[in-house]
C-alpha cells in the first residue's frame, strides 16, 4: 500500500469542472438554484480550507486547549444549526436539546477514543475528526427528529385537545409523537448501515484507504464509527425529545403550545 497521491492545485481544480454538469442539468430542469450551488460550493471550499489550516496547526502543536476549543466550537455550531431549523420550540426545550446534543455526543466520542481506540482524549488526530462525524450526524438526526415532533404536534392539535378533554394525561398523549420522531430520526442512519459495503464505500473508509491504511483496518474503523454514530443519534434524539416534551405541559396538565 502506498500513501495518497499528493494533489497539486491544478489537478485539484479539475474537480470543480464536474459542477458544470450539475449547473447544466439544473438549467435544463428549470431548477432555479444555481446561485445556491455556487454559494454552497464556495462556502464548503472556504470552510474546509480553513479547517485544514487550523487542523494542520493543531496537529503540529497539539495541546488540550485546542481540542477543547475545537470541540466547543463544533458543539455550539451544531446546537445553533438545530435550533435555527426549529425556531418554534420554547426556551426549556432548547436547553434540553442543547444539553442532549452536547452530552450524548461527548459521551459517545469519549467511549470511542478512550475505550475502543485506546488513545488520549486530547489527541487531536483522533478526537477532532471522530467528533466531527459524531456531532455532524447527531445534528442531522436531532434536526429531523425535532422537526418531525413539532410538525406532528402542530398538525395534530385537534387530537391532542380531544384527548386532553377526555382526561388523558399529556404524557400518554405526547409519548407516541416522541417515539415516532425518534424512529424517523434513526431511519437514515440505519438505512445507510444496510447499504454500507455494497452500495457505498463510506467516506471515512475511502479516506483511510486512499491514505494507505490497510482496508481491514479501515473497515474496523468504519464499522466502529457507524455504530458510534447510530448510538449518538439515538441517544441525542431520545434525550432531546424525552426531556423536551415535558416542557410542553405544566403541573395542571395543560399543554403549552
Amino acid at each position: 500500500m502506498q500513501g495518497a497521491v499528493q494533489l497539486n492545485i491544478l489537478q485539484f481544480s479539475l474537480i470543480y469542472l464536474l459542477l458544470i454538469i450539475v449547473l447544466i442539468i439544473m438549467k435544463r430542469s428549470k431548477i432555479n438554484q444555481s446561485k445556491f450551488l455556487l454559494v454552497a460550493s464556495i462556502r464548503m471550499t472556504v470552510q474546509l480550507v480553513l479547517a485544514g489550516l487550523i487542523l494542520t496547526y493543531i496537529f503540529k502543536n497539539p495541546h488540550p486547549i485546542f481540542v477543547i476549543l475545537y470541540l466547543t466550537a463544533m458543539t455550539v455550531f451544531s446546537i445553533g444549526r438545530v435550533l435555527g431549523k426549529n425556531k418554534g420550540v420554547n426556551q426549556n426545550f432548547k436547553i434540553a436539546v442543547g444539553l442532549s446534543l452536547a452530552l450524548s455526543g461527548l459521551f459517545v466520542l469519549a467511549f470511542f477514543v478512550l475505550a475502543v481506540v485506546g488513545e488520549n482524549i486530547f489527541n487531536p488526530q483522533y478526537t477532532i475528526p471522530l467528533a466531527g462525524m459524531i456531532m455532524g450526524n447527531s445534528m442531522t438526526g436531532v434536526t429531523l427528529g425535532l422537526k418531525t415532533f413539532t410538525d406532528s404536534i402542530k398538525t395534530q392539535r385537534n387530537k391532542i385537545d380531544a384527548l386532553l378533554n377526555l382526561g388523558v394525561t399529556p404524557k400518554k398523549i405526547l409519548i407516541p409523537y416522541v417515539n415516532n420522531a425518534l424512529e424517523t430520526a434513526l431511519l437514515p442512519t440505519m438505512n445507510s448501515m444496510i447499504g454500507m459495503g455494497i452500495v457505498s464505500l463510506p467516506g471515512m473508509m475511502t479516506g483511510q484507504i486512499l491514505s494507505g491504511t490497510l482496508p481491514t483496518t479501515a473497515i474496523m474503523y468504519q464499522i466502529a464509527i457507524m455504530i458510534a454514530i447510530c448510538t449518538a443519534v439515538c441517544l441525542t434524539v431520545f434525550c432531546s425529545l424525552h426531556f423536551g416534551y415535558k416542557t410542553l405541559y405544566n403541573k395542571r396538565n395543560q399543554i403549552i403550545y
Partner: protein
Amino acid sequence: MNFIVGNSGSGKSTLLRLFNQTLSQSSGNILFAGKDIEEMNTIDLRKNIMLISQSVFLFDTTIRENFKLFYEYRGLNILEDANMQEYLAMCNIFFPLDKDCTSMSGGERQRVYIAIFLSFLPKVLMLDEPTSALDKENSNIVISNITGYCQKKEITVIIVSHDSMITETFAENLITIERRAI
C-alpha cells in the same frame, strides 16, 4: 339543562375550558361540588367534567375502532357492540360499527364524536356548539335525546350554542355572556 349564549369572542368556549382546567383563570375561584377546582387533580376533574369541543377529532378508522382507541387512551375496556350502538342511536347514527369514519359527512362525524364522549358518562357534560354541523331535524333529535338521557343518569349538561331554536326549546337555565360581563 344549562345553556350559555353570547356573541362570538365573548368567552363562552374559554369559560368551558376554565371549567375543565385546560386553561387556568387569572383570578377568582371555580367550585365543583363545593371544592375549589384548583385544588383538584386535573385529570380526575376532566374525567368528571367532560368537554366535547367544537373541533371534532376521530381516528381514520371504523366507528368500533374509534371507540376502542378512545377507551384505550383512558385505560378502560372497550364497550360491547350493543352499548356502542345505543349511544350512537342517541345521536341519530345508525351505521354499522364497521363503517369507516373517513367517508362520513361533517355532521355524521360530529354525532359519532359526541356519542363516544357521552359513553364515558361523566358527572358534567359540556358541549361546545354541538349542532354546528347539523341540520334542524338532527339538531333537535340529538339534543333532545342527550338531554333526556343525561336527566335520567343525573348528568349535568352545559351547552354553548348559537342556535336560538335549540336554546329556546331546551334551556332551563340560560346564561348570557357579554364581553367583560355575565
